[in-house]
């Protein structure tokens, strides 16, 4: 059977279509101001037997399309297990939230923590900081890795951090070093959430921010644990949802 998963996040929408455990197709677009319209466009001409929605827009999708939903917590846990069957811990840093999920040996979620109150430590935070520094979001991580010294950024609030960055630039600090300091701030926040929720073992790192090479490298150094990143880390939630859709059908 063919199953689809749709992850309607605050910044982007991902769709994954799977057949018997193999990914047939993935699609992605920005969420914009009309998530359901965007989702409809992405789904156009796709063929599948069942679909499962996750992400913050899942309830809206459930009403519009009469599709079952699952929380992003469960979807990310399931997706991580697909890419890394040994996975027990997931760190997901998406556009506007971040979460850590810990699983028991059977793969069931045993605890989780989530920050979705503000943009602190998320993709949106890095995006705004890239603009403030004059870098593109795609190369921000590479630029930061060129830094020669460590700068400490104290503010985690996106608004306060932006003023801190402005005053650092006014002091004549190198933008690359400021960028590295910002990356370190994101890593410290993720690391403390990781330590609270899961004590040891490799960490599967998912979400758009996992594409940033500087975050992954600093994180590995900070927590002294292996970091596993799937090929398309932002697809993890959609893949997880598609797998749960297939499993639910077999179950019934």
């Amino acid at each position, binding site marked *: 059977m063919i199953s689809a998963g749709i992850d309607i996040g605050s910044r982007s929408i991902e769709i994954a279509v799977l057949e018997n455990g193999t990914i047939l197709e993935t699609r992605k677009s920005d969420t914009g101001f009309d998530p359901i319209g965007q989702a409809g466009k992405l789904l156009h001409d796709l063929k599948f037997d069942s679909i499962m929605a996750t992400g*913050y827009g899942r309830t809206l999708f459930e009403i519009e399309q009469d599709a079952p939903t*699952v*929380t*992003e*917590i*469960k979807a990310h846990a399931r997706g991580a297990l697909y890419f890394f069957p040994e996975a027990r811990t997931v760190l997901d840093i998406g556009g506007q939230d971040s979460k850590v999920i810990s699983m028991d040996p059977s793969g*069931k*979620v*045993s*605890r*989780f923590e*989530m920050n*979705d*109150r503000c943009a602190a430590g998320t993709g949106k935070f890095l995006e705004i900081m890239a603009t403030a520094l004059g870098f593109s979001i795609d190369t921000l991580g590479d630029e930061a890795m060129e830094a020669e010294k460590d700068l400490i950024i104290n503010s985690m609030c996106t608004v306060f951090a932006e003023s801190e960055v402005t005053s650092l630039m006014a002091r004549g600090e190198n933008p690359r070093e400021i960028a590295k300091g910002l990356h370190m701030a994101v890593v410290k926040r993720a690391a403390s959430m990781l330590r609270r929720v899961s004590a040891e073992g490799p960490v599967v790192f998912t979400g758009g921010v996992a594409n940033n090479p500087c975050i992954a490298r600093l994180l590995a150094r900070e927590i002294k644990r292996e970091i596993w990143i799937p090929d398309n880390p932002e697809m993890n939630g959609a893949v997880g949802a598609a797998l749960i859709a297939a499993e639910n059908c077999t179950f019934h």
Partner: protein
Amino acid sequence: MKEELLKKLQQITEQNLLDIEAHKEKGNHAIGFYCLYAPTELAVAADAIPLPLCGTRQAPIEAAEEVLPRNLCPLIKSSYGFAATDTCPFFKFSDIIVADTTCDGKKKMFEIMNDIKPVHVLQLPQNQDTLISLPPWKAEIEKLITVLEKRTDRPITTEKIKNAISLMNRERRAKKRLMDVTKAKPSPLTGMELVEILFKTGFFADKEKGIDLMNEISDLCHKLIEGRESPYTDKTPRILMTGVPVGLGSDKVVKVIEQCGANVVAFENCSGYKQTFQVDETKDPIMALAEQYLSIPCSVMSPNQGRMDMLKEMITEFSVDGVVDLTWQACHTYNIESFHVSKLVQDTFGLPFLHLETDYSESDTEQLRVRIQAFLEMI
């Protein structure tokens, strides 16, 4: 049947304000209380109606923030806001306010509230060591007797305290019996119904009316249990809520949990099971009150083993599938104590645990829903 009783509850609630007015017109008094620690028996012994004033609604918070800091617990802001805007009839009826030095936020707020209406503040010890803490606490209770006697112009005799203890014990037994009906699997009541019943009966001027109504509801629930009538099935997840108090207006977490398909069967908090104690009727009444009230397991106590003991008992007795620990924003004591609660729930009982920190506003309902749904997926 259940609907009729809830309707009756509503009728008595509407009649209640008139009852309090009539009681006061006869020259009697009403005394406002904010925490569980102050013995309401002493008000009853002075022929006064004890009224619980703890604020549970969002509406007066904006006004409170003109005086109090924004980053303060919503319960404290709501309580003060009702007083400052004069929008709570029960505050209006109160001739004097009895408060306690529980948490830092409350005790400093009471200093400001004193400008609106006289507040008598009991100095509550911060631990329950009977050797060290009981003597000063007993002295506080003796002082309260003098204060209330003066304010109400009624002598508070030993005999009257004994009678009041006996009446309040009966009320607490009725309350416990009501809260225990949800031990049945599936439960005949929803968590929201339980919140509503406990909240409304708390204000009743006539204690006997409240006791009778609670018993009537319990009797009906036992019939429903026998007939296996319930809004739920054997598979409905059974949730225990612990932490800060919950009342009408501050019940959004209960609402979301039940909207997500679970049933809140028990409340380990001061609006719930912490009210189920009995005061020893065989001892000297003032000593018995001091001992019993000091042992209330609020997170302001350090250490607070009593809460862990109560949780252990309740997790088993109510056959719960998961525990939600609720903290009002900026409530440091419950927020920090959540560490020990999570260890108890997850490590000792192996049950799913969720700690939520929120306020009275609706702004984070969807964020709460994601956490609650993910928590229920773990069951």
